[in-house]
């Protein structure tokens, strides 16, 4: 990233959350926050939403319909065979396969969706703004253009709880 940026670095969750709250009060927001573990105040406060569970629901819906359809096609239309006097469309038996196979499909597709949306994939080069953000530092990234006045305000708030690194 060749843009000019600066970071606010905090050494514990409480200071990060406190500074984040004060920034929000002033109508300011960091462009991104890097934390060693998920901090719910930040996840909520950053205003992003994830629809991954909605996606998973639809994956499940379509795979259920698809699987039931497939088993019906195989057992009734394509090559009907009698198994122990059961009807060709032995629906209760299909449920068992359907549940487990649906779960498998949901998992694979949701993982794929996660990988695409969060841009997490094998061999990706990480954009690291602070090398300790995955270890013990909580890092706010400011990379947008701020007016001088706003930038001073950010620096002041961050310095109350942590440190500024440019």
């Amino acid at each position, binding site marked *: 990233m060749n843009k000019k940026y600066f970071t606010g670095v905090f050494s514990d969750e409480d*200071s990060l959350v406190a500074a984040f709250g004060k920034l929000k009060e002033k109508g300011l927001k960091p462009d991104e926050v890097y934390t060693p573990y998920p901090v719910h105040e930040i996840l909520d406060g950053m205003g992003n939403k994830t629809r991954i569970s909605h996606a998973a629901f639809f994956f499940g819906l379509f795979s259920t319909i698809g699987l039931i359809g497939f088993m019906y096609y195989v057992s009734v239309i394509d090559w009907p065979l009698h198994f122990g006097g059961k009807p060709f469309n032995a629906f209760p038996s299909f449920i068992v396969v359907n549940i487990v196979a649906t779960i498998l499909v949901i998992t694979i597709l949701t*993982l794929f969706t996660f990988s695409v949306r969060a841009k997490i994939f094998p061999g990706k080069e990480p954009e690291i703004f602070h090398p300790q953000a995955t270890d013990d530092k909580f890092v706010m990234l400011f990379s947008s253009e701020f007016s001088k006045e706003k930038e001073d305000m950010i620096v002041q708030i961050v310095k109350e709880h942590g440190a500024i690194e440019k």
Partner: protein
Amino acid sequence: MIYKTEIRGPLINGDKSLAQISRDIIAPIDAKTPVWWFAAMAVSLGMLGFGLYCIYLTLAYGIGGWGLNNTIGWGWAIVNFVWWIGIGHAGTAFSIFLLILRQQWRTAINRAAEAMTVVAVMCAGLFPLLHMGRPWLFFYIFPYPNTRGPLWVNFNSPLFWDFVAITAYILISASFWYFGMVPDFATIRDTAKSKIKKAIYGFFAFGWTGSSKEWLRYEGLSFVLGGIAAVLVVSVHSIVSTDFAVSVIPGWHTTIFPPYFVIGAIFSGFAMVLTLVTVMRGLYRMHDYVTDSHIDAVCRVLIFISLIMGTAYMTEIFMAWYSGSIYEFSIIFNSRMFGDFAFQFWAMFIANAVVPQLFWFKAVRKRIWIVFIISIIINIGMWFERFNIVITSLSRDYLPANWADYSPSWIEVGIFIGTLGLFISGVLLFFRFIPMIAISEVKSVAKFNKPRVSASNSSHHE
């Protein structure tokens, strides 16, 4: 939540900083490989090698080399299959159910439990494959358009359900485990000094940086996978039980089987988790993370599950009498309880329903070596349970003319030893190369019950 702070006390001992948590858990990966590790690896690879030789014999000469006969068509292979898959259930059950119940103490143990799951399911999957007799034709079980008719699979068959269930289970538990490790691999990447280590763990870290966007979706993913894997855990072992319960063999054809199997699986898995974490804690001095109170909690869970196991055994005995079916009665009373298989039955009963009751005593729970021994006893007891189910019912069915006895050939024993070797070597590799405790999850609970720097900030975080 209420439980995590006020009642349980600190989840990590020693008032550790976040950086120290990373260092402590990564330490075994950076350290020189200890001598005992090589010794244990050599032994387990030897066991695995012997197992591979027995598998070679099975492939070359067929399952005629096993001790099976016309009456007893399922021998040690299926006993071991059910045993391993049961152990394999704990990892996911552990993570998922404790996640749903918001038990924060799971964080120190879930990684090891999930690792155990993946290896155990690999061991389990081997047995049905070999039992096919012609394993090179295993792909016949995939329902795909083929040139054999097209001859599709039988969707009514529990054996097909089993195939789907195990395939799904291994893929899902492995991906659940792996995605849990991604943030920790990033931590290793960012803290490692060696370039090679940085590159290797960096590759597996998938470019993770810990940004809020990543965490948000990551939490969404855990929520989805956790929710559906809970269903999976219950359904997979229910399906394994239908391999038996859908038949008409006395002692198998009972409605209690699905819950009985699921509980049994979680029981044996928790016992194996206990075996594993006591070993891990001792060898790698993880006492601050896997604290006495963690061990204590698992022991308490085991008391409860053991009571359910005892109830299930008593229910089987009661129903054998109460149903009025002479075949059921004969299997349970004349074969299992007071017959040729009495040793296996009572070994099962005592090891699973009686011995774990010792965990009621605090004196037992706090002596780790006793806990370790009891966990091994439960593992053996659960093996006997599967032996009872598989062998007894087959050996004494409706026609006395068909009755037969069974003892395993050395090839069957060898394959079992081979899977034990596979399991141990897999676990050793896990200890050596993967952070054995979920670093990011432990960090998220590290702050509980610690004297806070800013006492004014009293807000509780999820």
